[in-house]
């Protein structure tokens, strides 16, 4: 490895070193605050180091890594999301009985897995990243060992994720058999020369689709989502909904565009079908939910359905739209789950819709951030979600995907219905639920999230400018 290779891997090295340091520290002295502070600091340094390596990209470390602006962008999004989740976890994890410092170690390893996905250029790194991410998530989901639902969710995720990983691995193996290579670009060129897709390759890609579909919770591989979202601690649900999905999306986009999958009619039909199904199933099932975490789970299914429309646009502009969409979706989702986790105590999770009754009159600022998040998920103007949806619709229409765009719009209306239901509850007469006191960091984080939602909704030009100028694949 050269010096430049090392330089380009700085963020990964930082993220990988941090958990080791924490492990050593807690073996000597357990101090929750120190560990928390160190985690926040390491994530900040990791984020800063991204700027350090911008001059030396694009850079390929054969055969596994490809570090270009696209991957750095995703890396940045992943680290910032992990940072926000960390900030919001403070109070929630602090209340837990037993060990809690380990939470941050595992948060780091899962972030490492996620960020590897952003730079993967090879099946090996792809699988390595996904497994690092998944295994860390098993632990995070079941972190509240005293709670039955948490254990249940952890085991559910464990079993289903292992099955899906098996599918993914077998799919990779089949493709390797067919082409004798595991590098994305090599597979792409083999596909071009090979013209016709042999059944072996088709089943290979099909199986990979199952694995990826599971991670993104696309219909029909979505069954785990509501249970896991409900059972996992609220910050972890936020983490699954954002970092884990975003990282898989990063590699899916890279893989799919490398292969030029949008030109293949099988892929086209499959992806369209999955997108439409995800939108409708996610939104329709969300309508009847009484549990906000489940509801957000279903809403994330629908959101991923909107997002994979981008895969079919087949243009750099589409990728840019997807990045903007992901950023807005990340902020919004973390905001919504952040509110839930700040209002939860370890024994009593604020997850039923009634728990939020009259929140606006008791904790107006929190309720405003929650309202903004929900409006943004629903795609109402002055929020980031509106511009993001607009961007995706715009690129979708440009690529002539009218059916998909129309179903997206129909679904926006369906989606509105259940978001409105929560918002109505927030503003209804106050109930008598007791709310925990809020910490300073929690408040600040939520304020940052709320303001970002507004800024991206009212003046998104600068971010779009940055994305359009730098991000290409």
């Amino acid at each position, binding site marked *: 490895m050269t010096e430049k290779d090392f330089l380009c891997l700085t963020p990964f090295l930082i993220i990988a070193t941090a958990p080791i340091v924490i492990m050593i520290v807690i073996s000597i002295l357990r101090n929750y605050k120190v560990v928390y502070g160190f985690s926040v600091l390491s994530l900040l340094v990791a984020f800063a180091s991204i700027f350090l390596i911008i001059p030396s990209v694009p850079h390929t470390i054969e055969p596994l890594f490809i570090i270009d602006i696209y991957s750095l962008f995703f890396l940045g999004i992943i680290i910032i999301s992990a940072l926000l989740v960390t900030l919001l976890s403070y109070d929630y994890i602090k209340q837990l009985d037993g060990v809690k410092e380990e939470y941050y170690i595992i948060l780091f390893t899962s972030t490492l897995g996620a960020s590897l996905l952003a730079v993967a250029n090879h099946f090996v790194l792809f699988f390595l990243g996904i497994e690092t991410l998944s295994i860390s998530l098993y632990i995070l989901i079941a972190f509240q060992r005293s709670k039955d639902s948490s254990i249940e969710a952890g085991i559910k995720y464990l079993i289903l994720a292992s099955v899906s990983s098996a599918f993914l691995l077998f799919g990779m193996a089949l493709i390797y058999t067919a082409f004798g290579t595991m590098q994305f670009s090599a597979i792409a060129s083999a596909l071009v020369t090979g013209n016709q897709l042999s059944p072996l390759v088709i089943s290979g890609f099909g199986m990979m689709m199952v694995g990826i579909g599971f991670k993104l919770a696309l219909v029909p591989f979505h069954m785990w989502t509501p249970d896991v979202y409900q059972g996992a601690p609220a910050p972890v649900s936020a983490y699954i909904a954002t970092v884990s999905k975003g990282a898989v999306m990063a590699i899916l986009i890279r893989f799919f565009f490398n292969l030029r999958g949008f030109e293949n009619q099988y892929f086209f039909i499959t992806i369209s079908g999955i997108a439409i199904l995800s939108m409708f199933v996610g939104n329709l099932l969300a309508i009847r939910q009484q549990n906000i975490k489940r509801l957000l789970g279903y809403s994330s299914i629908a959101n991923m359905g909107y997002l994979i429309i981008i895969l079919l646009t087949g243009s750099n502009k589409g990728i840019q739209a997807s990045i903007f969409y992901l950023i807005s979706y990340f902020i919004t989702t973390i905001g919504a789950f952040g509110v839930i986790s700040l209002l939860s105590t370890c024994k009593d999770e604020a997850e039923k819709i009634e728990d939020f009754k009259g929140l*606006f009159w008791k904790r107006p600022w929190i309720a405003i951030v929650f309202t903004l998040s929900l409006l943004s998920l629903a795609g109402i103007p*002055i929020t980031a979600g509106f511009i993001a949806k607009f961007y995706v619709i715009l690129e979708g*229409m*440009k690529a002539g995907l009218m059916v998909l765009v129309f179903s997206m*719009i129909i679904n926006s209306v369906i989606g*509105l219905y259940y978001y409105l239901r929560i918002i109505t509850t927030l503003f209804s007469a106050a109930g008598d639920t007791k709310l925990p006191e809020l910490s300073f960091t929690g408040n600040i984080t939520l304020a940052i999230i709320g303001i970002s939602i507004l800024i991206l909704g009212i003046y998104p030009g600068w971010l779009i400018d940055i994305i359009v100028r730098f991000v290409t694949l």
Partner: protein
Amino acid sequence: MILVYLIAILLTGAFLAWITGKWNPVWSRIISLAALSIDLIIITLFVLQSIPSEKDWLIDIKFNWIPQFGISLHLALDGLSLVMLILTFFLGLISVIISWKEIDSRVGFFHFNLLLILAGITGVFLSLDLFLFYFFWELMLVPMYFLIGIWGHENRTAASNKFFLYTQASGLLMFISILAFYFIHGHNTGVYTFDYLQLLGTSMPASTSMLIMLGFLAAFLVKLPVVPLHNWLPDAHTEAPTAGSLILAALLLKTGAYGLFRFIIPLFPSASMTFAPIGMLLGVIGILYGAKLAFAQTDLKRLVAYTSVSHMGFVILGVFSFNELAYQGVVMQMIAHGISTGALFILAGQLHERIHTRDINKMGGLWEKAPVMGAIGLIFSMASLGLPGLGNFIAELLILVGVFKTNILMSCLASLGLIAATIYSLRIVQKVFLGKKNKDWELSDLNFREKIVAASMVVVIVWLGLFPKPVFDTAKPALLKTLNKQKEITFQNPGSNSDNAEKVLCEPSCNPLCTFVVKPNLFNHKGSQSKAQSNTKGNQDNLCP
């Protein structure tokens, strides 16, 4: 910059009202009053200073917003928007005053929402960028939803949801149309922009144009509302607090009518011509059906809500007649209906505040107890039935006359609506204020604050009825601009739908556009009601020599 200030003042006022409302509710009321008064003063000063009618736009400003997508902050003012703005700020003031006692919980947040809605409405009346227009269009919704959902009556949640879903769904259809328009224009010229002035005159196949127009129409006709799409309106009006009903009826519905003028007719000249017979038919159905349902209601607010449906039927009837007289009438109808229906809603609110019911079967004989209230009720019921001397009469008459020139049958059917209006309006007076007492209600008459509100609205409606010329003069250039565009384009390519074009415009002896040349002084200063009536007829003769 004045246009940006108008919106900015409302937005700043909104936030200030919310924050100060935490300490003292009176502050938020005063701040709202101040913000609206400043806006009203600015716009009045502007009117007094100058109305150069030659220019297309009195003020026209443009900043970049999201240049990557060709979205700009393009605001412009012409006569039509000017008139609507004055109405907006005036009724905004009224709505703050009438909420003084009615709203006693969460006052700060109430005024925040109120001012935000008004800012959205102001933006809608000023935007010349389709994206910006949609932005403001949606901006009105959320605070209105809160207004109904938080301070409304018993069934507020269902009503506010219904309102939101209806308007949002139709708004999204408009949004698709906007995008389609954007792409077609971009494809034709290579310039991707949402700018209204650049999108004007985009050529496209007739069928595409029709489809895109239907998307726009969906949003406007739901807002207006037109009969098959009116379902949300009675619920929303009934359940909203008084200020909410006032703003819904007087301003929000008008954004639909404004959209027809500003977007449907100029952007889709030939498609709108094709659609005209259906549009007029919908209008007539709305007039009669709304009136029939209004007659059947026992809930006072619901009754008034259905009269709105009926009155708005006149608007769409007039818009699709492509005739200057009718257009003048439509503008007048927008204002007069805003004032008269608004006043009736205020009255219903005041009654509800006093006797806690809206059921007119439980009322009766209230005149004795509250003579001033009775008199006000009588005046506005008369306005609603179209009594000469009050604004609504001028409006409906002009629309009927204008429509008569293009479609006699529709005009005749629509005039039946006037009879129906008489029946339901008299029923209000009879059931509420006259008739036998059903119960011995304890109620006080209007207090000073309420009298001021009522008096100012009476002054306006009488003024509109007797001396409507300023309104006509102000709105006229804008309306002619719309009509001329229509004429130009339908004459340029008569191929696509020549039948309709001929039917409407090829009456050289009595072309509605000739008023532009003749420039008759419609409604000179006249004192008496009967003279105003005969004057209309006189002018009519002038127009068709």
